C-alpha cells in the first residue's frame, strides 16, 4: 500500500453552484484545518497532492465525487474520512474511502462514464417512458455544444449508454472523461426543457473493470 487515500464525497444543495476550482480551494482549506499530514509538491510554490476525477459542472450536485490524496505518512481511509468530515463546510460529506495500492492509475485516466439523475422542477408535458424509447431508438441525437471556441453541432447518441425513466426522473448513463463527455443538460435540451427547470445530480462515476463491467473508482482499489 502507498500513503494514498481515495475518497468518495458528495456535493450537496448548499454548494451546488461552486465551480470545480471553488471545490478544490474548499478541500485544500479543509485539509489544512484538519491537520492531516498531506504531502506537498516540491518547488517554490508547494501544492497539496490532491487529484480529482472529471470536473462537475456548476449547478450540479453529486453523490459520488472522488479524489485521491497523497499523505506524508500512512493514515487509514477511515481516519481521513472522519477528520475531513468534522471540518468540511455544510454540503460536503465524505461517504467512503479506501487506501490506494502502489502505482494506482489516476482517477482522471480511469473514469469513463457517469450516471446522472435529472429531476424536473415543473410538471413535464411528455411521457417519460415514451421519450426514453424514442431517444434510444434514434440514430443520431444532434445538440448545440457550447465550447470555448463557440457553438458546435454535435451528435451525442454515441455517448448515451443507458436511459431510464423512474419516479418522474430521467436517469442517464453516458460518457464521462476527457475523450468523450456527455453533458447532462444536453439531454434535457433534447426534451426542450430549459436548463433552469432541471435539477441535475451526479449519481456515480464509473470505471470499466477487466471484464468490461462498470464499477466505481472505489471498487477498483478495494478489489485489489
Amino acid at each position: 500500500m502507498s500513503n494514498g487515500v481515495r475518497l468518495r464525497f458528495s456535493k450537496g444543495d448548499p454548494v451546488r453552484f461552486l465551480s470545480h476550482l471553488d471545490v478544490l480551494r474548499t478541500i485544500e482549506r479543509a485539509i489544512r484545518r484538519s491537520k492531516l499530514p498531506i504531502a506537498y509538491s516540491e518547488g517554490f510554490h508547494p501544492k497539496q497532492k490532491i487529484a480529482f476525477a472529471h470536473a462537475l459542472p456548476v449547478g450540479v450536485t453529486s453523490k459520488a465525487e472522488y479524489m485521491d490524496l497523497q499523505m506524508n505518512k500512512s493514515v487509514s481511509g477511515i481516519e481521513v474520512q472522519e477528520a475531513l468530515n468534522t471540518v468540511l463546510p455544510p454540503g460536503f460529506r465524505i461517504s467512503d474511502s479506501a487506501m490506494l495500492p502502489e502505482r494506482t492509475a489516476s482517477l482522471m485516466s480511469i473514469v469513463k462514464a457517469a450516471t446522472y439523475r435529472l429531476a424536473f422542477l415543473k410538471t413535464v408535458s411528455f411521457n417519460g417512458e415514451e421519450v426514453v424509447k424514442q431517444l434510444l431508438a434514434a440514430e443520431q441525437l444532434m445538440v448545440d455544444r457550447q465550447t470555448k471556441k463557440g457553438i458546435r453541432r454535435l451528435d451525442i447518441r454515441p455517448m448515451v449508454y443507458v436511459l431510464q425513466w423512474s419516479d418522474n426522473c430521467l436517469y442517464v448513463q453516458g460518457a464521462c472523461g476527457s475523450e468523450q463527455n456527455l453533458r447532462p443538460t444536453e439531454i434535457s435540451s433534447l426534451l426542450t426543457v430549459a436548463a433552469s427547470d432541471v435539477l441535475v445530480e451526479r449519481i456515480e462515476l464509473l470505471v470499466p473493470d477487466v471484464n468490461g463491467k462498470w464499477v466505481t473508482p472505489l471498487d477498483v482499489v478495494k478489489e485489489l
Partner: protein
Amino acid sequence: MDERLLQILPEVSKPARYTNNELHAVHKDWEPLAVRMVLAFPDLYEIGMGNLGLKIIYHIINERVDAVAERVYLPWIDMQDKLRAAKLPLTSLESGQALSKFDVVGFTLQYEMSYSNLIKMLDLGGIARKTMDRREGDPLVIAGGPCGFNPEPLADFLDCVVIGEGEEIIHEVLDVVKKCKLQQCARHDLLAQLALIPGIYVPSFYEATYDKKGHFTSLEPMNNAPRVITKRVVADLDTAEYPEKFVVPYLDVVHDRVMVEVLRGCTRGCRFCQAGMLYRPVRERSVETLKKQIASLVKHTGYGEVSLSSLSTGDHTCVGNLVSELVADYEGQGIGLSLSSLRVDSFSVKLAEEIQKFRKTGLTFAPEAGTQRLRNVINKNVREEDLYQAVTGAFKAGWHQVKLYFMIGLPTETTDDLDGIVTLAQNVLKIGKENRGAKRPSVAVSVASFVPKSHTPFQWEGQDSQEQLLEKQAYLRKKLARPGITLQCHDVKTSFLEGVFARGDRRLAEVLARAVDLGCQFDGWSECFRYDLWMQAFAECQVNPDVYVTRKRTSEESFPWDHITSGVTRVFLAKERNTALAQERTEDCRFHGCSGCAVCTTLSVENRLQRGEQHE
C-alpha cells in the same frame, strides 16, 4: 433559499455570489426584539468580501445576543435584471430577507466611485432613497468608512453617518436602536437620540447655505445637533475586539487570506494622503496579540496565506521580529506570508526577501513624485538613494520586475518633475541590468492622477483638468517608450468624477440620483463606467462639476466637511500647506516629537508603539 431565486441562479454568472452558506457565516434566528442589521458593501461580492473593517463589525455585532449582522453586496447586472424580472427584492445572504425588513442597513464607503452603487442597492432592496421619504418602520440607513469624512454628497440618502473607527461606537448605536425599537419611538426621536452619540452625524439635522456665487458657506445645526462631530478612535488595539474566525468564501475574492491589522494610523505625514490624516495617531498591536490572532484565524479558516496589513506595515517597530517568528512557525505548514505595503528602503526589501521565497510578482515601491523638490512638497520622505538602494537589493535578491508608483497633477508640479519620473524609471532599469543575470529586468511605472481630498493639507488645491492630465500622460508615454519599461496611467475621467465627490456638497445628491436613473452603476469598473451619462446628469441638474474639481479654494472659505473633524485641526492643515509651498518637510511625530496636528489632545489618545528595534 427562495424557490424563485433558485430558478434564477443557473442563468446568471457566478451564482455562488448569491448563495450564502460559506463556512463561518453566522445564521441567527430573528428574535423579535433583537436588532437586525445588514452590512452592505456597495460593490460586487468578490470585492466586498475582502474588506477587513466589515469582517470586524460582522463579528462584533454577532457576538451580541441581542443583535444580528448579515451581509449583502450589489449583484452583478445580469442578476439585477433577473431579480427585477422576477419582482424579487435584493436580500441579505444569511436569512434571505429583503433589505427593507432590517432595522439597520449599514453601508461602508470605501471609495467615491461606489456612490451610485449605494443608491442602486437601496432601490433594489426596496428602501426609499431619501431620508425624508422614509417612513416609520423603514430601516435606518447608516454609513461609515473613509468617505464618511465628507459624506455631504450622500447627505440626502443617509440617516446617519459614523465618523471614525467603528469598534466601540457600533455598540452605542445598536443600544439606541434597540431601546427605540422596544419603546417604538418615532423615527425622528431615534435620529435625535443617535445624534447625541459622540461621532454620529445626522445629516438631516443640518441645513446648508450657499452664497450668491453658489459657493458653500455653512452648515447650520438644528434640533440641538452638535456643531462639530469628532471622529471616534480605539485607544488600544490590543484590547479591541477582533474576529477569531472569518467567513471563508468559496469564490476567488480579493484579499482571500488571513488578515491581521498590525497597526492603525500613520504619521509619516504625506500631504496628499487622506488616510494618513484620518487615522492618526499610530497604534501598534503587540506581537503577542498578533500571533494569537493569526493562530486562531489559521486554525479556523485553513487559509494558506497570512497578510500583515496596515497603511505601512514596515513601520511597525517590531516587524522584523514578527516576520521571523511567523516564518519559523508557519513555513513548515505550507502557509505563506504577505505584506500589504513596502517602504522604499533596503530594510523593507530584506523583509520581503524573508517572506517571499518565490519571487513571483514584482516588488512595488511608491516614490510618488519624480524630484526631491516635489517629494518635499508632498512630504514623501524618500530620497533617490533610498530608492536605488532598495531596487538594487530587490534585483540582487532575484526579483526581475520592480513596480514604481507615481502621481501626476500634484501641486507645484512642473515639467522637471515629470522628467524626474522618467529619470528614476530609467535609472532603476539600469540598476536592474547591472544586477541581474540572464533574465531581463523590467520596470512597470504606474501613474495615478492626484485628486485633492478633504481633511488634507491639499484640500484647498485645484485638481488638474482632464486636458492637463492627458497632456502629462502623453508626455510620459513618449519619454518612457523604451524596451523594459511599461507605463500605466489612470483614467482621467474616473479621476475627474472622483474629484467631484471627494470635495462635493449636498447639491450633488440630485446628480447622483439622476445618474443612477440614467443607468450609472459600477463606476469603478471600466466596462461599466458611463462618463457620458454622468455628464448628462450634471447638465440636467444644472450642476457644473468643474467647480468642485479644478477650482482652487480660497484660504478663508468654509468647506462642506468643516463640521466633521478627524482631530487634526484645520489650522494644522493650513500650516502644512504653507510648509509644502515653501518646499519644506515635516518630520514623523513618532520619532521627532509632536508636530502639532492636535489629534492626541483632542481625542485623548497618543501614538502607541511597541518599541521594538524602533527604526525610521
